[in-house]
């Protein structure tokens, strides 16, 4: 009898493992396809074969002088943009997954800590002051981190931080920064800085260059990597507070480590591409439906799915019309219906079983 149960368990485990491998294989395939297709399409027509050839040349001989316009379009305009979109999507998705674990709340997204709004304020202020390029990026990043530090100070009462005070402090800091952003919009020059701020607040990769991608990449990659290294800790943090403590977790310190990483990821992303909503909430949920709640599988699944989703969305944003469609509009328009269908299917299956 016991042997039979053991065999059944082993079989179930094998099936689960096979299923997970299949899911990861498909996700990776989706991402790689999206990535390659994205490099081959755009408003400037470059034949797909030629585009791939150029990418190959770019990889094998990166120091080559680029003289033709199609070379520059593929290697200097599209490639950094696609890479940045993939990194940003991955970072936002993994941040969302980690935060939802830490807060044990499925409605939490990276915006909740006030980082996006703080960063938005930095950006709006920079644009108002006529600051462009690197200093603007630095300013956005610093204000994103500053928002998190404010949330930290505010939520720490008698040397302890409760989950609920973090969420409330995040809300307070968020609304304060968004109020100041509104104020900046109110006094901005309607001919120049106002449309620039509005556009920037809707998110876009249109201004991507290798320089910007390389500025954002370390934060996005390191942050995501460290979150992945914390995957066991996240499993414990997502338990009940008392239970987590009994398992030897220093919940406060570990939580702030997670928050810090998220600030670095979101700060880096907002600094180069403005505010992009929805990815941090839709993708972790979709990933959870595909691979379950275990952070060991959830985090990598979120990374791949987030990267693929962002690349697809951004490709649509830059190719669908001659005008750039703001990403905030696209992520909500595409993300919300997918999310709704996924959720309904999930709960229908659950109530059926």
């Amino acid at each position, binding site marked *: 009898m016991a042997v039979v149960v053991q065999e059944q368990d082993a079989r179930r485990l094998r099936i689960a493992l096979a299923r997970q491998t299949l899911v990861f294989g498909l996700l990776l395939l989706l991402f790689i396809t999206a990535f390659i297709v994205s490099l081959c399409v*755009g*408003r*400037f*027509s470059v034949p797909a074969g030629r585009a791939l050839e150029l990418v190959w040349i770019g990889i094998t001989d990166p120091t080559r002088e*680029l003289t033709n*316009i199609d070379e*520059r*379009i593929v290697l*200097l*305009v*599209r490639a950094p943009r696609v890479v940045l979109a993939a990194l940003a999507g991955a970072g936002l998705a993994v941040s969302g997954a980690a935060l939802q674990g830490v807060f044990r709340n499925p409605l939490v997204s990276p915006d909740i800590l006030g980082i996006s709004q703080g960063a938005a304020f930095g950006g709006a202020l920079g*644009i108002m002051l*006529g600051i*462009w390029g690197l200093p603007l990026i630095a300013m956005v990043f610093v204000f994103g981190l500053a928002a998190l530090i404010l949330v930290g100070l505010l939520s720490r009462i008698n040397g302890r931080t409760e989950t609920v005070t973090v969420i409330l402090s995040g809300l307070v800091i968020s609304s304060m920064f968004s109020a100041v952003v509104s104020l900046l*919009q*109110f*006094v*901005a*020059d*309607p*001919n*120049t800085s*106002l*449309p*620039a701020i509005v*556009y*920037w607040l809707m998110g*876009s990769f*249109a*201004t991507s260059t290798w320089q910007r991608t390389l500025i954002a990449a370390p934060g996005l990659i390191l942050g995501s990597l460290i979150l992945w290294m914390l995957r066991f800790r996240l499993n414990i943090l997502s338990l009940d507070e008392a239970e987590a403590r009994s398992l030897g977790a220093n919940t406060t310190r570990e939580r702030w480590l997670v928050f810090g990483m998220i600030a670095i990821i979101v700060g880096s992303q907002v600094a180069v591409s403005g505010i992009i909503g929805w990815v941090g909430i839709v993708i972790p949920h979709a990933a959870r439906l595909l691979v379950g709640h275990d952070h060991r599988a959830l985090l990598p699944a979120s990374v791949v799915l987030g990267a693929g989703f962002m690349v697809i969305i951004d490709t649509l944003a*830059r190719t669908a019309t*001659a*005008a*750039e469609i*703001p990403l905030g509009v696209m992520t909500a328009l595409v993300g919300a219906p997918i999310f709704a269908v996924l959720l309904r299917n999930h709960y229908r299956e659950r109530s059926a079983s």
Partner: protein
Amino acid sequence: MSLFHRLGSRLFLVGVLSSFAAQGAGAEEIVFKDQENREVRLAKAAERIVSIVIPMASTVIALDGSTKKLVGMNPTAKSAVVEGILGKIFPEAKDIPSDVTAPNFVPNVEALTATNPDLVIQWGGRGNDIVAPITNAGLTAMLILYGTEELTRDYMTMASKALGKPERITQLVEWRDRVQKDMEAKAASVPQDKRPSVLYLGRALSDISASGTKGSYNAWYIELVGGKNASAELNGTVSINKEQIAQWDPEVIFLNAFEAKLNVDWVYSDPVLSLTKAAKNKRVYKMPLGGYRWDPPNQESPLSWMWTANLVQPGVFNYDIRAEMKAAYKTLYNYELTEADIDAILWVKEQGSATNYDQFKAK
């Protein structure tokens, strides 16, 4: 609806009162319809005008030939006036209040009332929320619409009527008309395949924006001078990317005069834009900044068209821009432009090496 009624009855009341006053004063009442088809009644020529609309501030100065009648303006207009040539011609402009409105055209009613204006110029077509505060304070508003040359001439005519100087505008409108007709006649002979594609970028530094042809003043004068709008496929003013510009591959690029830190190097130092026909042939120009920025419609528009025409169709047009500018500034502002003034307005130092720019240099 109710707001409309209230507005109507208030206007009626004002009308009745002012007609009494006019009878007493000897009937110099001024009545006209504004561009939202509202009746504007002034008991006498306006002595104190506030312009919430940005380009109208410098237009009012030009129509009056002084800053005396402009008692309030948009902060954005003020920075343009003070920092540009008008600040030099009329140094007293720096004392004109700009707290009467937020840059986004929402009036500050108390500051506005404090300037005691006879007439407030405000945008029409943007809803009643930015108009009601003015009329509710018992002030007279004149609403104008943005976009075409016809509308511009029409609202400039209204403003000069309100100022009690209807004769002044005849001169300015005739000038616009004469230049436009001259250009239409000369450009008519240019065949389609000799019309270069011209791209005007309304924003460039944070994100890049361009406009479709419909409703765009820039596209209108690009076509007037015998060019083709490179971004004709767009609808309205929208954000675009550099790849799209490469695909259009414009022969001439005009950069806006709004962004102070923008200059032609922005195109030449960009890996993709520097390969467009415009960049290769050095036909990238930043729009001049005169009494107002030359991109949108304003009192100096014919100068803007002539400058554009000489650059877009050098074989067809050869206006003597420096002479035209001197004459126009004498008429508009009663000011003798110096050679250095002209160089600064046309960015001769910054873009003197561009193709066909030698013609604009002092002889």
